[in-house]
């Protein structure tokens, strides 16, 4: 790891100041991806601005018809939240399956989506549930937030503050983990919402995406039998030593069925 200056602001404005005063800063949330990346010297920063001391970024609350989760809320806190469990159990279940217990104690929802690892779970959760990402500057719909691998709509210095999840009628997440890394080879969030069915897929492609063919089918009938094959082109899917594009495409269908079954149960 290259050395860096370390800052632990206690408010967003302090964080802003720390970012502005550094030549080449990086934001750190839970650090569960960033620290290994720094260890491998795959990233280098003049300064690391750690958001862990900012209380306004933490906590889970209900706001109208939405559950709002502070960006620095850990996966464990989401997994164990009674509020999340009662309002959006699919999200609690998703959080319970991220990494391992120790990673869940440190890793945060904000860090996960800002990093936008193409195999991370939360991007599928946000996109599938039609979440709105609140930042230090604006609000961004999940549909507009996630780009390709590791790319998001965030601008330099823009900090994710919270994610607002509208309550779905029903939803569930099904994941097929990579046997080595335990990231998703395919993860599918299926949500039946007032505005129709949303199906978001992580792990399979170069970034999280919505599977329109499956959405279309489930809008017709929200049942396991309605789900047929994924509509995505295999060429747009990942192929690596763990899973070919063909297998990933197949697993999208299987995981979607399982998610629907779970959502309907």
């Amino acid at each position, binding site marked *: *790891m*290259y*050395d*860096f*200056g*370390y800052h*632990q602001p206690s408010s967003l404005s302090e964080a802003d100041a720390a970012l502005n005063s550094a030549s080449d800063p990086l934001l750190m949330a839970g*650090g*569960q991806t960033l*620290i*290994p990346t*720094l*260890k*491998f010297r795959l990233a280098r920063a003049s300064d*690391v601005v*750690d958001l*862990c001391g900012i209380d306004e970024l933490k906590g889970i609350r209900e706001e109208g018809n939405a559950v709002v989760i502070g960006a620095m809320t850990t996966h*464990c806190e989401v997994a164990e939240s009674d509020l999340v469990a009662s309002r959006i159990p699919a999200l609690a279940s998703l959080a319970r399956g991220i*990494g*391992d*217990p*120790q*990673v869940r*104690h*440190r890793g945060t929802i904000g860090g996960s989506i800002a990093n936008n690892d193409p195999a991370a779970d939360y991007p599928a959760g946000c996109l599938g549930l039609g979440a709105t990402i609140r930042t230090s500057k604006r609000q961004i719909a999940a549909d507009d937030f996630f780009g390709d691998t590791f790319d998001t709509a965030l601008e330099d210095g823009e900090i994710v503050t919270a994610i607002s999840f509208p309550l779905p009628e029903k939803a569930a997440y099904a994941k097929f983990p990579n046997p080595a*890394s*335990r990231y998703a080879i395919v993860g599918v969030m299926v949500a039946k919402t007032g505005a129709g069915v949303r199906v978001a897929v992580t792990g399979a492609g170069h970034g999280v995406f919505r599977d329109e063919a499956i959405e279309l089918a489930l809008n017709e009938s929200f049942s396991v039998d309605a789900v047929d094959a994924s509509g995505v082109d295999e060429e747009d899917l990942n192929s690596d030593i763990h899973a070919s594009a063909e297998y990933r495409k197949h697993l999208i269908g299987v995981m979607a069925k399982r998610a629907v079954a779970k959502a309907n149960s």
Partner: protein
Amino acid sequence: MAEVTMTVNGRQVSRDVEARTLLVQFLREHLQMTGTHVGCDTSQCGACVVHVDGKSVKSCTMLAVQADGSAVTTIEGLASGDTLHPMQAAFNEHHALQCGFCTPGMVMSAVDLLQKNPSPSETEIRDWLEGNICRCTGYHNIIKAIRHAAGSAA
């Protein structure tokens, strides 16, 4: 360099460290507490698991400066005097360790499991240990030891 102060196994310690110093390096190199081990670089193996403010974390994936002000418990702090913690005793009783390298992290992780779930099933134990790799035991006796420590053995 930054000054870091934390309570480790009940003892307050302060050291000047580089910001890039990992918690595990702080423990091993600055405090000479070598019970916490490093077995990988990718947060997979769990040999480095310690408790920070009561929760198990991977000390190889946390900066020492992030633990400033925290209470840290390591494997060295688990026994009381000559009396092993029940989890340590169960690991001995059921031969849940061989080379001993993953053991500190494995024990610390298992202790945290029982804090959260006092009587886990075999499946729950196996799931919880997702972040702890053992190359020697095939996990069989680790599972057995944890079940006995929990008093939940069939």
